[in-house]
Every structure is written in structure tokens, then in C-alpha cells.
């Protein structure tokens, strides 16, 4: 049986909706100086001090994550092209103009590159958080105890993800993850491995987003997929006696706003 109205990706939508708007003058590098859990809870865009623009992004991204028809057959408002257009229209109405040096660059709030980056990053972060929660279900862990880092989108200049995996495996003290890569060419690790924290660690990788779920870096084409028990066993990650523990997820950390953020 097929239905026309899907259930929303509740966990992903909640991850976005709960975010507080935080206008900021901080650059991306400076933003990373803020605790990762605080950044995770806020809707940031570097050096975007206009809270109305941030609210516009939040509303539009919410529509992309959970498209709801508001009229007969009308879904264009959830098309990234029209979201870009609404952002550009807003900026034009507010009289925004980039400096000559920044025009067309990522520092230009109205450039395609900037808007796409904000849209894509925040949409995917919400989806990544939602998938993390589903992957962490105890019944799922028993059947799918591991995750694999795989490429979902091609890039003209891809990052060296195998190199990053080796660095992250060392930092996480997970020799099994490193071994699996060397012997199978696959980037697979148990779900409770600290490597999933290291992969996005901005202390290791300056472009990291400091989340234990994808995207692990800005404009990354990589994602994670569950690995079945038999596959994990063949890779030597589990045996019949292995129990993979659920990852401790602080939902208040993932979705709720700390008191100091509310006060701000």
C-alpha cells in the first residue's frame, strides 16, 4: 500500500525546530571556539547579524525537512532554488550590499555559494542527528552494530577521507577501525566507537563540524550507513559474544537550549 503523505522525519525536524536563532558577528573560525554542544543547539550563520534572515533560513529549512502542502499541489516553497530566491529577495529588500572585495564569495550573504552552504549544512545536520537517533535503537544495534562512512555525492576535489579516517582512528584509539580500512578498503567502525566523534573534531580537522554524525565537515559529500551483523562479523568487528552498547545521547544537548543561550 502506498500513501501520499509521508510521516515527517520527526527526529530531524525536532533537531532544527528546537534551534534558537543566534545572530552573531563571529567568523566561522571564531564560532568553532564556542562549545560544540552550544553550536549544535543554535541556528548559526557566520557573521550574520540579522536575526530575521536567520529566522527565514530556519523556516525554509524546516519546510525542506518536512514539506507540507499549503495549497493544491504547491511545493515550490520547499525547492532549494526558490529558497535561494527568497533569501536574495529579503536581502535586496533590506538594502544589503556586499563589499566589493567580498562580492560573489562565501562572505557575500547573497551569493549562491553562501546560501547553498547554509541551506545544505543546516538541513543535513538535522537529518544526520535524526539518523543517529534511529541508528542507536537497541534493536537496531543488535542487527546493525556498525556504521560505514560512504560517499553520497561526488566532488571535483574530494577530501582525503581515508587519510582522515586513519587520523581519527588514532585519536579515538580504535585500531579495529584502522585495520578494517587497510584490509578491506572500507571505512567501517562499531557504532559505539569514539571514531565517530573524532571524524568531525575541529581540533583534528579545521573544517570539522564537531558533531558525531554527518556531515562531518563543511560541504562534505560523505554520509553514514548501517552495517549488518554478518558483514561486521566478516570484517572482524564483532563475534557471537559481542554486545554493542547504545551510544549515550544527551537529548538536552542535541535538541534543547541551555539557559545561557535563552538569556542571550
Amino acid at each position, binding site marked *: 500500500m502506498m*500513501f501520499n503523505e509521508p510521516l515527517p522525519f520527526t527526529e530531524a525536524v525536532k533537531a532544527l525546530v528546537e534551534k534558537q536563532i543566534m545572530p552573531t558577528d563571529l567568523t566561522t573560525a571564531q564560532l568553532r571556539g564556542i562549545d560544540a554542544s552550544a553550536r549544535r543547539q543554535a541556528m548559526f550563520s557566520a557573521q550574520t547579524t540579522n536575526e530575521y534572515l536567520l529566522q527565514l533560513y530556519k523556516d525554509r529549512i524546516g519546510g525542506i525537512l518536512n*514539506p507540507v502542502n499549503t495549497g493544491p499541489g504547491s511545493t515550490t516553497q520547499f525547492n532549494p*532554488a526558490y529558497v535561494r530566491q527568497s533569501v536574495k529577495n529579503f536581502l535586496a529588500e533590506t538594502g544589503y550590499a556586499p563589499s566589493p572585495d567580498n562580492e560573489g564569495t562565501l562572505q557575500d550573504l547573497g551569493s549562491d555559494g553562501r546560501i547553498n552552504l547554509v541551506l545544505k549544512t543546516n538541513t543535513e545536520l538535522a537529518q544526520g542527528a535524526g539518523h543517529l537517533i534511529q541508528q542507536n535503537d537497541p534493536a*537496531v544495534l543488535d542487527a546493525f552494530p556498525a556504521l560505514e562512512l560512504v560517499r553520497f555525492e561526488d566532488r571535483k576535489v574530494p577530501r582525503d577521507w581515508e587519510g582522515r579516517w586513519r587520523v581519527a582512528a588514532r585519536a579515538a584509539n580504535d585500531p579495529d577501525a584502522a585495520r578494517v580500512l587497510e584490509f578491506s578498503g572500507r571505512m567501517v567502525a562499531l557504532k559505539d566507537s569514539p571514531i565517530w566523534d573524532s571524524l568531525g573534531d575541529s581540533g583534528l580537522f579545521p573544517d570539522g563540524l564537531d558533531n558525531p554524525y554527518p556531515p562531518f565537515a563543511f560541504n562534505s*559529500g560523505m554520509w553514514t550507513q548501517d552495517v549488518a551483523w554478518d558483514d561486521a562479523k566478516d570484517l572482524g568487528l564483532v563475534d557471537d559474544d559481542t554486545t554493542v552498547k547504545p551510544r549515550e545521547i544527551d537529548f538536552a544537548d542535541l535538541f534543547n537550549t541551555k539557559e545561557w543561550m535563552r538569556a542571550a
Partner: protein
Amino acid sequence: MFTIDIKDQLTPFNRALQAGLRAQSINPPIGVAVKKLFQDHFLSLPPNRMDWPTTNFWSRCAKATHYDLIGFGVLISVSQVGALQRLKGGDITPVNARNLAIPASPETYGKAPGEFDHLAIMWRWSDGSPKAIGLVAQRATATIIERAKSGKRAYKAVAEMVGQVVMFWLIKKVHQQGDPNTIPSEVEIRSVIDTTVQGVVDRATRRAGRG
């Protein structure tokens, strides 16, 4: 966006129930397995037919695929606008606009007309009245001049050529054929479910056997 309901009358599921397993032990793994099947399927689909720079539509479908547990079953949802249209097909008509704007070049693929400055409407006469058929961008101009036969000026402009590029075609309606290959086949889905449930049963049986 669409949702598929996986019913519980499948033989493997019944075997699991007979083995004493409950729905909450079986359904989440089914959800994950079918979600992965859908993701792999989307990622295997070819990009746009025109071979223009991709908008990563199928990757977005893959990321937007998730499962929900409802009642005694599992729902797989793909919360990505456009996915159901590709699967079922149908007519696409403009909403809050007079025409659909169809990209006419790689430059405009995945973009909206409002993102471009200074687009002009291309008109054509049809049935005695002008009809808007496209949006064009003026890319170059050239002025044709010739020597003046009289007057103070040595040369005069006699014509102007304008280099225009069609950025979007304007049409009233598009009919898209549905493509059942947009999603995995029922045979593939059932096979994945069968394998997943059998795995759950086998592990439960082994653990029970070890006491």
C-alpha cells in the same frame, strides 16, 4: 515524497513471532534494512538526462529516507519534494505563476528565474495574440553602422543586433511519465526483509541455545 507501508503478513515475520520475538525486536531492523536498500537504489540512479551539472537530487532523496514504527508495521518515508512525482508521474502546472519556467541551459538548471537579473520575455505570435514563450538574457550587443550619405556625421547607426540566450522556456504544463524504477522492486524489498528477519531469528536462537 511518499511512504510505503510494509505489512506484517510476510512469512519471515511470522516465523519470528513463532520464535517468540516481538515486533519491537524485528521492526526496527527491518526499517533500517529497507531504508538502506532505498538509499543504495537512489544513489545508483543516473543523474539528469541532459548531462548537466547535477543538483544531487538522488543524494538528497537518500538522506531524506527514514523509517517510522507504526502499530504493527514499518513505514518507509522519503521526505524529498519531487520523489513521488518521478515515481508516479503526472501533470505539473504552475502555482502562483502563469507559466512553468523550464531551464534551457546548464547555467539555469536547478535555479529559479528570480535568481537572474535583467531577464526579458521572448514573445511569439500565436492565434493572433502574443504569447510568452521564454525568458532571455541579453549577452552582447552590436551596432551596425554605415557611412552617411549626407549630414554632419560621417557614420550612422542603421541597425542593432542583440545577442540573446534563452535561459528558461515558458510553458503552461508538463506531463511527466511515472517511472516504477524510481524505487526498489517489491521483490527486492521482500528479499531484504526476509534476510533481515532471518538474521534476527538466527541470533536470538543462538543466544537462547547458549543459555
